[in-house]
């Protein structure tokens, strides 16, 4: 019986020739990540361990991004704790305000995540780096602490679900629609404890940013990781961004999968997840009634990349957001922000009546920069629409692509760019 792509990476990092689903292993880590919410807890736990500092100062990334620039005194204390730990341990990859970005957009851009790596991060969306052919998964603060101290983590080797991607997406269909469609199909626990392995000839029709979005939301189906094969596009991305050596692993031909699905990109439609679970999906054509919207958020580790901003700007260009609409655009990193400025995208947003913010996770998790009041509705390019996620428990979040979010900002109701005059 052969191994899946994920199993091969794990076996290599555990020093084993072969692993099987369900086996408990200890794997060597290539990178350990934390943010301003999870790192303070990890630092406190690490201080209880009988260790002298971190295992490798170059293999830890600390990214304050959730509540920065500091939203209040308590957040400032957390950030201070992370900053002091980073300086004390001479952490190479600590990113201060001004150089930081939303962690899962920032780390690939900085070349810290490459194919074949094993990466843990104390943030559930750490699974994003599977887009480059890495095994990466979210953990909690104690796992992060143990990872920082020992350079190792324990894993139960996952089984996998195979998604065979075929066809070419139509205009206004992006990676977000692909992953929302899949979550709608298999449910928020459809891939619980499992790898989601994306394969097939249709992958060439997905941009790197599409793939980051798809891998990013593997956790929203309960997945342990989402992973793509390493093709020319991924290699080109890594060569452009990274000096690290990458290793390409491929699933064995006789690898066994729990389930297999075929996703024909040409048949997908703009897809929206209704409150209060990412699995409550409807295509734009299935929405018959007008759903009035108060706020639109375009950003996050899911959809704050350049492709996303370009699409949103294409929709907003020469148009204006609806009266009473708050449209918040958040480029995910400083480099994306700069590029968006040079391309004139920021000007388009501002002329359309949107606000543009410094990189932050803020509104996605109801932290700050766009909290919802009771009864308010938001179309958001973020990743979760749980009860109270973005504010009041009686507010509602509709998850969608940047194209749908931008179009909805213009009409004031859930809309697709294809419906605009």
């Amino acid at each position: 019986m052969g191994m899946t792509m994920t199993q091969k990476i794990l076996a290599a990092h555990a020093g084993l020739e072969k692993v099987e689903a369900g086996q408990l292993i200890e794997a060597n880590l290539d990178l350990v990540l934390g943010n301003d919410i999870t790192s303070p807890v990890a630092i406190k736990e690490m201080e209880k361990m009988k260790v002298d500092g971190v295992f490798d100062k170059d293999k830890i990334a600390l990214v304050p991004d959730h509540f920065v620039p500091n939203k209040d005194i308590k957040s400032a204390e957390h950030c201070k704790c992370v900053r002091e730990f980073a300086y004390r341990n001479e952490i190479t990859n600590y990113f201060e305000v001004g150089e930081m970005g939303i962690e899962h957009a920032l780390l690939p851009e900085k070349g810290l995540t490459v194919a074949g790596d094993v990466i843990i991060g104390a943030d559930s969306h750490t699974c994003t780096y599977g887009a480059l052919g890495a095994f990466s998964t979210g953990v909690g603060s104690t796992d992060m602490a143990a990872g920082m101290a020992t350079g190792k983590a324990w894993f139960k080797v996952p089984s996998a679900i195979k998604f065979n991607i075929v066809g070419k997406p139509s205009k206004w269909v992006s990676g977000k629609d692909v992953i929302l469609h899949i979550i709608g199909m298999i449910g928020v626990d459809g891939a619980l404890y499992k790898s989601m392995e994306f394969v097939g000839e249709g992958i060439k029709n997905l941009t790197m940013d599409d793939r980051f979005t798809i891998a990013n939301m593997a956790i929203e189906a309960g997945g342990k990781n989402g992973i793509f094969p390493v093709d020319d596009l991924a290699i080109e991305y890594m060569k452009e961004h990274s000096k690290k050596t990458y290793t390409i692993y491929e699933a064995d031909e006789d690898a066994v999968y729990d389930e297999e699905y075929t996703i024909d990109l040409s048949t997908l439609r703009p897809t929206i997840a209704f409150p209060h679970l990412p699995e409550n999906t409807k295509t734009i054509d299935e929405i018959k009634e007008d759903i009035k919207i108060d706020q639109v958020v375009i950003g996050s580790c899911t959809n704050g990349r350049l492709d996303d901003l370009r699409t949103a700007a294409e929709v907003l260009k020469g148009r204006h957001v609806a009266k009473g609409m708050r449209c918040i655009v958040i480029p995910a990193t400083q480099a994306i922000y700069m590029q968006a400025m040079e391309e004139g995208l920021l000007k388009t947003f501002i002329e359309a009546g949107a606000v543009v913010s410094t990189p932050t996770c803020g509104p996605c998790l109801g932290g700050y920069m766009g909290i919802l009041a009771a009864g308010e509705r938001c179309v958001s390019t973020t990743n979760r629409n749980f009860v109270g996620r973005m504010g009041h428990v009686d507010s509602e979040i509709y998850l969608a692509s940047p194209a749908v979010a931008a179009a909805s900002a213009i009409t004031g109701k859930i809309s697709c760019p294809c419906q605009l005059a």
Partner: protein
Amino acid sequence: MKAAKGTVFKYGDNVDTDVIIPARYLNSSDPAELATHCMEDIDKDFVKKVQKGDIMVATKNFGCGSSREHAPIAIKAAGVSCVIAETFARIFYRNAINIGLPIIECPEAAKGIDAGDVVEVNFDTGIITDVTKGTTYKGQAFPEFMQKIIAAEGLVNYINEK
């Protein structure tokens, strides 16, 4: 290993970490402070009613969503002695073990036990007893090394003892 006994708080499918501890409180990492907001977005009465030793029972995919360890920390600090569910989301599962919050997967118990029942859990055997109803269930026993982590009251102590 220890046993747990307490009154049950019952919840449904997909209880996410945003309702277990909303992000607006994550500017703190103090367990006692987090405990005062535990479950408040789906059950305002939980923190008023919970007694030390009480047990939480839920159906599938408990703890889905964010990786925040603050979620099991809040539950543990609120006094809960054990969480029983049909299934747990994987990051929550790791986190609970790593901080020494006993959790146990048992689909039958998750369905059969009701709010307010008094329930006893034996962690060595995985036997769950609904004292109120007089029923017993066999939960999923932990692999040996996870038992050691739980017995050490968390991963940090376990690593220190190794």
